[in-house]
């Protein structure tokens, strides 16, 4: 299994991942795999453990066990900074914009972790709002601008694997469109993306595959081609 995964360029491979958040055992044996250049979502109801899975990959949980393999390297025991250095870019659910840094400082904060990150100029072309507000304090931005900033911040670093946690949550349709364009562009450029998303309509148009998560486990996987025929099943999973 792991050999074949290496051959088709497995970028992230998680096996039997358990994770604790304080006292609660949130992740109860998560297994999933993403090939290089794929865009994969994790869908599921609130509290299923989607955000916790991303935090576990980044090394941000108090306790985790099992196996997390990034670019063929086991990182289950590694601290967050070492995982990021492997070329992982993290966009947290709460966006994590620094109030004590202005927009440019927020953009320049993450160090380079790989070759070929976007230049500041390219980022401003992708998100013109950020150029206009580059001297503003990070948290003075609107929700949509903060989300753009959170994504732009990791585009600069040369990371090749992105963990995006609910990038469209609570945003106006126009902004959602802009975020989608950015993710499509990332996909074209061959970035690998693991996306947690409540908005299935948004996820559906971007993703190659969808993992369904329930009570701390991956319970199903639906390929892009099957989404149309499986819509009743998906709706049941999401509780729509």
């Amino acid at each position, binding site marked *: 299994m792991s050999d074949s995964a290496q051959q088709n360029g497995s970028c992230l491979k998680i096996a039997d991942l358990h994770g604790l958040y304080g006292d609660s055992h949130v992740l109860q044996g998560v297994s999933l795999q993403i090939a290089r250049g794929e865009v994969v979502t994790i869908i599921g109801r609130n509290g299923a453990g989607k955000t916790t899975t991303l935090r576990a990959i*980044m*090394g*941000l949980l108090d306790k985790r066990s099992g196996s997390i393999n990034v670019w063929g390297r086991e990182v289950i025991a590694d*601290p*967050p*900074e070492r*995982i*990021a*250095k492997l070329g992982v870019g*993290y966009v*947290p659910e709460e966006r*994590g914009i*620094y*109030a*004590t*840094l202005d927009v440019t*400082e927020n953009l*320049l*904060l*993450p*160090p380079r*972790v790989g070759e070929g990150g976007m230049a500041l100029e390219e980022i401003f072309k992708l998100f013109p709002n950020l150029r206009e507000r580059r001297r503003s304090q990070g948290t003075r931005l609107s929700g949509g601008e903060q989300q753009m900033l959170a994504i732009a*911040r*990791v585009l600069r*670093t040369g990371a090749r694997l992105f963990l995006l946690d609910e990038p469209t949550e609570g945003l106006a349709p126009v902004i959602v469109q802009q975020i989608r364009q950015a993710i499509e562009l990332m996909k074209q450029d061959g970035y690998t993306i693991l996306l947690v998303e409540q908005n299935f309509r948004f996820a559906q148009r971007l993703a190659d595959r969808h993992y369904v998560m329930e009570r701390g486990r991956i319970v199903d996987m639906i390929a892009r081609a099957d989404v149309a025929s499986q819509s009743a099943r998906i709706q049941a999973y999401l509780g729509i």
Partner: protein
Amino acid sequence: MSLEILMGQVVVGLINGSFYALLSLGFAVIFGLLGIINVAQGTFYMLGAFGSWMLLNYAGIGYWPALILSPLIAGAVGVVLEKTLIARVYKLEHIYGLLLTYGLMMFIQGMFVYWFATAGRPYPVPLELRGGFDLGILFLPKYRGWVVVASVFFCFATWFAIEKTSLGRTLRAATENPQLTRAFGINVPALLTFGFGAGVALAGFAGVLAAPIYSVSPLMGGELVITVFAVVVVGGMGSILSAIVTGLSLGVVEGLTKVFYPPGANMVIFVIMFIVLLIKPAGLFGRER
């Protein structure tokens, strides 16, 4: 009362205020970054002063090299203490950091009392800074002028480093959200060690500056740190600029009190602290949380 006395006390106040500013600045850097209430800040000031005294008396190394070496040595001691002890209490409540640094203060101070006794030891003013300027209304010893200039310069250099450089950007990010900052590939634990060492080195620098003015004694820091604590409370915890401004201005207020009401000079800072705590508990520049 003459203008001369008034100006004289303003200068004395500025000098004391310079030390308050340097020490509360180191205190603010450490509290802001690590959440540690570093009671031992005065002890590191004493270490800086003793460092320069020992360099001179045991190794024949004079004031100017000591001004660089002694803070570096104090900073190195800080780095070792952070790695071995301080880092263990980050996850606990503030009181544990306070107790730990209090214990360190007692321990280090006790060792120095054991070795050197409590009597003050003189440290000569460097040749280049002997004498003074007659400014007409007052005579300003060169060394005292140097102390004010050097500490104001260092305070603003620290402020600049934190507010305007990429290292400072990273330090601010690590202060605000350490976990996320690590998730960007920044080694926050190493930054914390550096931050503690830098805060300690600032205190050590103040100690070297102080050596020729006050006598070098194991107890010199323990007395000063109580006043510095009051300065920090008046200014508000954790703010760099407020540590500088409050330190200098409370020094001057203290000096002026000596002119107008001498018996009150030793307690005026504490009276101000009391009033500030009543009116604005977060401190003059502090933000309510």
